[in-house]
């Protein structure tokens, strides 16, 4: 095992970094998309329940199947990987963003409007900052989930640690196959922990003391 790691540590670090970077970029993309969608729908009861159902049903789609489906139109490579990871990342964030935005006391929104903030300014300066702790919780859940999904995305020859897992599994029983799989799996777990710590730190920095629990 140590030999395996020693021989390939550069490759492992590079794949790990690619994996991490894929997940973080997809998370950012997913957060932006989810917050925009949530901002558009949270004031309508009907749309909110549609969005909630979509995010619940979306999570039941097997990641592997979705990648398989996307390879046909998009081919192998980074594009299908990014789409799949961002798609799954967006679902929990979307749900939390809708919950967070609709959970703000109407009196707060009224007082924002009452002192002359426009609808958009109210959203930007009052509602989103107040919903941010809940949105960030969604981002953390997403981050954990899509670390694993990003590994699956290696099936479409996307970047990341998934390569070790798939190559190990395909040579099951062969030399270094177990080491390869273990490297991939443990690497994903370590990255997940690091990212979670970073997100906790982000929360510390971005959530004002007034609404910290």
């Amino acid at each position, binding site marked *: 095992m140590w030999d395996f790691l020693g021989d390939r540590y550069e490759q492992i670090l590079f794949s790990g970094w690619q994996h991490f970077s894929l997940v973080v970029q997809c998370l950012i993309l997913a957060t932006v998309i989810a917050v925009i969608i949530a901002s558009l729908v949270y004031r309508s009861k009907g749309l909110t329940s549609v969005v909630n159902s979509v995010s619940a049903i979306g999570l039941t789609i097997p990641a592997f199947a979705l990648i398989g489906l996307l390879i046909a139109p998009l081919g192998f490579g980074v594009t299908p990987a990014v789409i799949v990871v961002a798609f799954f990342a967006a679902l929990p964030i979307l749900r939390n963003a809708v919950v967070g935005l609709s959970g703000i006391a109407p*009196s*707060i929104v*009224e*007082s*924002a*409007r*009452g*002192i*002359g*903030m*426009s609808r958009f*300014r109210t959203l930007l300066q*009052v509602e989103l*900052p*107040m919903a941010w702790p809940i949105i960030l919780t969604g981002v953390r859940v997403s981050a954990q989930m899509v670390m694993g999904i990003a590994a699956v995305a290696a099936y479409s020859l996307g970047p990341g640690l998934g390569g070790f897992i798939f190559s190990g599994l395909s040579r099951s029983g062969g030399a270094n196959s177990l080491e390869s799989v273990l490297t991939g799996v443990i690497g994903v777990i370590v990255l997940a922990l690091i990212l979670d710590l970073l997100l906790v730190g982000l929360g510390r920095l971005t959530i*004002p*003391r*007034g*609404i910290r629990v």
Partner: protein
Amino acid sequence: MSERNASTSPAPSAASTGITGASILLDHVTKRFPGQVHPAVDGLTMEIPAGKIVMFVGPSGCGKTTTLKMINRLIEPTEGRIVVDGDDVTEMNGDTLRRGIGYVIQAGGLFPHMTVATNIGIVPKMLGWDKARIAARVDELLELVSLDPALYRDRYPKELSGGQQQRVGVARALAADPPVLLMDEPFGAVDPITRLRLQDELLNIQDELQKTIVCVTHDFDEAVKLGDWIAIFNEGAQLEQYDTPERILGDPANEFVENFIGSGAGLKQLTLTRVEEVGLADAVIGNPGERAADVLARVAEAGHGHAVIVDDRHRPIQWLSRRKLGRLDLISAVPDPKLPVVGIRATLNDALDTMLVSSAGAALVTGRRDMFKGVIDVRTVMDAITRSQTAAVLESDKAPVGLNTGMFQAQASAAEAAEAELIGAESSSAQSSSAQSSSAQPIEADGSGADARAAQ
């Protein structure tokens, strides 16, 4: 609107009277909510004079809050015009309008993720003030609402008590120095003692600033205490009586108003006399750090029983009896939290309450920014009660202009009543009778308004 007001509104009025408020006119304003048969506000015409406090009272669901929110167009009127300071604001941009009108809701409506300073500075920031000016304004306003800027500037709303949050809410509403302040049940969420203090403070602030304040409340005593004018609403924002507290108590326009005032109207006269109108007794004043013996000597010389200790801003912090002074060596600067204090614009009712709660038999009176003014005792209050009971009726013709032109609404509800009769008896009998009775009342109310004009 803010710019326009800054340039136009204070100039003509402020020069002569110190009033910084603007008059408001609701001109045949109607609000129909979709899916409701009866309009929430039905053809209301109402003048709100500049620099006065007008209280809207009435049973819940009577449309008083809707009426208030139509002034800053948080709720858009279906028909009619809103005129602020002579300008028709019905068509202007709502956000711009609202930046020029202060708005206070229950519990302050502060933004929990912003500090006190950010909360207060938010409207000036939207108006494009520079940072230094905003910071100076924030401190000025915190002083005005009796909060120490150094202590409270950087706190978050959750680190404040309910009363303090409410004060910050008022400070925020006043931040850009708007001519009009709208308050929606502002003191509903605080305990009774804090409420009295906040009411006193509002009166002191108003004394200083002379804004036009429109305030919704369900508490008639609060209306009597705060209001220069009280508008009593019935369902559909039917104006039952719009008059001074004295006249509403002394001469209720109709049965509805009588019922609304409730029993004990005689005792409510107590709420008509303000502490400032009765004689205050002087007190011996001491400062923290003085030797108690010196203060005691002054107390003995003046023949008093107590000395009032005030801080560097002349706010009372302790009230020491001779015996306590005798035991002390140096006078400390620690404020006594249970000090019986009433504002100078508080009513005798409040003063009596405060005395009874503190069992002191007297209370300290404070004026602007909580500065010590004098002492009021039970005997003064009792004398005033006796006097006010005999004088109550005589005051009635003092009422100035500011009336409900209720003609439109009387016609409208008369038409409604006729319609209801046409539709059929089975469902509408109760409705039509209520409509008829209410159609009769505004005419009466209008009549009394005309009387008031005639009397002038």
